[in-house]
């Protein structure tokens, strides 16, 4: 490509005899001489591959005498076994079909046993009636190029390995996160005889590990316990605290289900664990027990709260009220904490609603001065009063979605209610 022959002699030097002489000498660099000593290999073969003509450059690379090659060897005889195979399965068919083929990487064998990576381009010369006559090939030394390519390939393989490793790592990490997240929240809520329960969790953190928690679990034959809360902070540290909190509360409740006792145990554990660590961590929590009365269907709720927004009770008659727990201290701050208690009774159609402050602190305006707030929540709840826990949670989920970017904190919702009609018990006969 470099040696184009279409340049005109420089007109300014047209009369320069010295220049003419040099030019004439160049012209005497005959085509034959150029062919023999060209900086690339030339080769002509019959259609069956028998070598008819070969230049000195290529003979030099091969370490062969012309007499041993011309008429005696085929093009494929110059190639390595792999090259032969590639020639037969790819190169030759393509050359036949296309009439030319260019830049194919092959290796030629040297008499000393060495190999030279080359790039081969071939064209078929056709006769006057279109019949293929012979194949002309140029062979370029590709040693440097091949080593660059091999380096490229090696790098590419290394990059590919690194990418696969990174993907595997990420998958493992995501799996670990999912397992951790599952350990923070119940997969499904247990079925509570004579009650219905529903929950919703909105995780603000993109890595999904949240700082809110809730749970419902059986205490003994009749009673159930529930809790819901919010640990301070976000991300993995918050999740570790959440996990500690959840399992401490469950274990404490099995030992003594009294709500104040359960929260006090959690308080001692968190205070011991985090005070003096330089990274104080606390949580808000509401913990309670459900005690159904099989005779009346009523459920008595005892609860205690530390630093948590008040629970809501939605009544069958369409009213809603907060169940205040004032003065209950953040759990984990002081070695001896005070927790506020409250008691209520749920009748058919009543629902107890627990939530974290992600709901009440959701922004309803451009900045943080306009928050959803407890008054709006009370109004919203009153509108839902009398509906099933599932319906209440569904409505609140819609409310949360409506906040859009205004909802920037984790939010947990838990609704526990007594159905208007008694839940179907196993003893109930199915219709025939």
């Amino acid at each position, binding site marked *: 490509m470099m040696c184009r022959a279409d340049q005109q002699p420089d007109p300014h030097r047209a009369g320069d005899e010295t220049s003419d002489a040099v030019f004439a000498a160049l012209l005497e660099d005959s085509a034959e001489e150029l062919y023999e000593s060209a900086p690339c290999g030339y080769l002509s073969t019959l*259609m*069956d*591959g028998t070598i008819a003509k070969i230049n000195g450059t290529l003979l030099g690379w091969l370490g062969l005498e012309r007499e041993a090659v011309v008429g005696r060897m*085929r093009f*494929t005889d110059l190639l*390595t*076994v*792999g*090259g*032969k*195979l*590639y*020639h*037969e*399965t*790819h190169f*030759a*068919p*393509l050359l*036949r*079909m*296309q009439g030319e*083929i*260019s*830049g*194919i*990487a*092959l*290796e030629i064998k040297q008499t000393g046993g060495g190999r030279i990576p080359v*790039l081969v381009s071939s064209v078929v010369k056709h006769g006057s009636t279109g019949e293929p006559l012979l194949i002309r090939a140029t062979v370029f030394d590709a040693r440097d190029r*091949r080593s660059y*390519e*091999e380096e*490229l*390939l090696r790098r*590419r393989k290394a990059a590919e390995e690194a990418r696969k490793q990174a993907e595997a790592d990420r998958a493992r990490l995501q799996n670990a996160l999912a397992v951790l997240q599952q350990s923070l929240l119940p997969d499904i809520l247990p079925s509570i005889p004579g009650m219905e329960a529903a929950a919703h969790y909105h995780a603000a953190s993109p890595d999904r590990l949240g700082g809110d928690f809730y749970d419902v679990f059986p205490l003994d034959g009749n009673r159930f316990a529930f809790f819901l809360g919010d640990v301070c902070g976000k991300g993995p540290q918050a999740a570790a605290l959440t996990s500690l909190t959840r399992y401490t509360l469950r274990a404490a409740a099995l030992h003594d289900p009294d709500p104040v006792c359960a929260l006090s145990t959690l308080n001692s554990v968190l205070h011991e664990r985090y005070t003096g660590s330089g990274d104080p961590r606390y949580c808000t929590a509401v913990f309670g027990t459900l005690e159904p009365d099989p005779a009346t269907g009523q459920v008595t709720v005892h609860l205690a709260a530390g630093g948590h927004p008040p629970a809501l009770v939605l009544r069958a008659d369409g009213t809603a009220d907060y169940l205040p727990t004032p003065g209950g201290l953040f759990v984990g701050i002081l070695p001896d904490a005070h927790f506020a208690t409250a008691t209520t009774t749920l009748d058919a159609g009543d629902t107890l609603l627990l939530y974290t402050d992600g709901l009440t602190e959701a922004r309803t305006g451009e900045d943080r001065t306009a928050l959803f707030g407890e008054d709006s929540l009370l109004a919203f709840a009153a509108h839902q009063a009398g509906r099933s826990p599932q319906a209440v949670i569904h409505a609140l989920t819609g409310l949360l979605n409506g906040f859009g970017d205004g909802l920037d904190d984790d939010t947990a919702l838990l609704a526990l209610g007594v159905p208007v009609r008694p839940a179907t018990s196993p003893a109930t006969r199915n219709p025939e």
Partner: protein
Amino acid sequence: MDIVRRNNVTVTGNPHGPSVVLAHGFGCDQNMWRLTVPALAEDYRVVMFDYVGSGRSDASAFSEDRYSSLDGYARDAVEVCDALDLRDAVFVGHSVSAMIGALAADAAPERIGALVMVAPSPRYVDDDGYRGGFGADDIDELLASLESNYLGWSAAMAPAIMGNAERPELGEELKNSFCATDPDMARVFARTTFLSDSREDLKRVRVPTLVLECTQDVIAPQGVGAFVHEAIPGSVLITLEASGHCPHLSAPAATNQALVEFLAGLR
């Protein structure tokens, strides 16, 4: 599954004629039959396809497990015959496809009524008195060379090395003009082909069979055609004055004549 799409099946020629299936070997794709089709089109319904992993087949259907044995490729062939509901078709297989045809005919005798084996070789490695043309070392080198020839394969499609994200049209153009396959799939096909041993399978061939060999074939050297011929009872061996491994390209007239005469004899 849409086999016609998966295997890029093309049907041409005389829709009322007997069916002839043309199956490519390792390397290129159904384009290899370009010079064969005109000789058959008038009298025969000509079916061509690409094995999964070759040509314009659906690469997403590739599984290393399935295509690590010739049976996997034979299933492709049978599934193509099933999809078109072929009966007594003549299966023309080039190179390794000749052996794939033998397996397919054994698996689906109602589909395949005759075989044409173009430059067949049931065993590429020399083995205890058998001369396949390659030593065990050669095969190792060959497979290693296939590995390193990732560059060779891709020199004509260098963009594939670099992923070619910025200029997808470049890769497309090169692929169109080249018997290009995904290097990983090509390696599987090469390994399956060159390490296979189908000598026993030949004994189970029960259909009329034409064996076409070339005088100068690096891949299936002289003597191999005779071995195949002797292993298949009642087969016909024709030695074509042709060089290379692809007589249907290098000597199309002689190849087509042998093929047409064999097909005519079946009717």
